[in-house]
């Protein structure tokens, strides 16, 4: 719903916002791409932003791959496309608890994903159509930023992530004047490098059990 309201408030025409919601189906990528679209940034910059924002799904797809290795290519692609943060977490939890029927895990996953898809699309389209009845003065576009805060908050649980976030923010602030939101790339890249270095520095060898409590 937030992405729906934000898209229309950002200046997207209603049918296009609906098409985007149905096809892209990635709230954070849509929110991140929105200011670039409105500013008329080049296509590759917008798609690159989408790719970067969606990078976490690369990790998700690596994590669920073992469970679906024997399924057909078409089925794997369909399951992957409809996977979201929420369905991924649900799937991994059930898979690890063993509360999922092994032989039918693709059906199980498809069920979670389809109900999630319907809920998400209904609320997104409600937001798109309802956006014109919401006054701009309410500052509802700020919910987009808050949604990103909610997404990032739980990840700040380890030192490399915190270091990366701080470096990313600082570099993004200093490079803010660059065109096409390139400051975002500079910040993200610098943050990733800083986090990776911190990670390597923190455990130069594979983690020993004795260090685990200290690092936490």
């Amino acid at each position, binding site marked *: 719903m937030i992405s729906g309201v934000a898209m229309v408030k950002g200046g997207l025409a209603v049918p296009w916002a609906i098409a985007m919601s149905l096809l892209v189906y990635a709230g954070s*990528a849509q929110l991140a791409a929105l200011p670039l679209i409105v500013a008329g940034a080049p296509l590759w910059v917008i798609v690159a932003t989408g790719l970067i924002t969606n990078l976490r799904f690369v990790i998700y797809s690596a994590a669920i791959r073992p469970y679906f290795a024997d399924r057909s290519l078409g089925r794997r692609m369909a399951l992957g496309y409809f996977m979201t943060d929420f369905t991924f977490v649900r799937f991994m939890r059930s898979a690890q608890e063993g509360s999922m029927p092994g032989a039918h895990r693709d059906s199980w996953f498809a069920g979670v994903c389809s109900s999630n898809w319907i809920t998400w699309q209904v609320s997104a389209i409600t937001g798109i159509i309802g956006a014109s009845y919401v006054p701009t003065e309410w500052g509802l576009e700020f919910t987009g930023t*808050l949604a990103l805060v909610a997404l*990032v908050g739980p990840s700040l649980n380890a030192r490399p992530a915190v270091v990366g976030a701080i470096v990313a923010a600082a570099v993004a602030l200093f490079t803010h004047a660059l065109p096409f939101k390139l400051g975002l790339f500079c910040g993200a890249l610098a943050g990733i490098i800083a986090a990776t270095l911190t990670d390597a520095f923190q455990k130069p060898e594979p983690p020993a059990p004795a260090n685990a409590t200290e690092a936490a």
Partner: protein
Amino acid sequence: MSDPVSGIGLALVILGLALSTLVTRTSFLVAGARLRLSHRAEVALRYAPVCTLSAIIVPDVLFHGGAALDLAPFNPRLVGVIGAALWLSWSRNIVGCLATGMAAYSLARVYL
């Protein structure tokens, strides 16, 4: 407000973004065992989301669309984000986080 954005360019953007969703979500599912990432690349990928989001959020809060930094402690967006962060420190509930953040943001805009 300017005219709503639409047209062929936007259609291409939507297709491109849809492709970015498909490619990232199916990457390992499709490439499977053929795609091998080094340990370092895996570590870097793990921190990509938090760094990207931080690089999006912080300038958005401190510049809020203008060209000048707004470091005033009563910048309503800053107040809103702090409110949301406080909520997140004791609950993962996203709706509560949005509600707290918006409440703090609105109060700050009205009273500060």
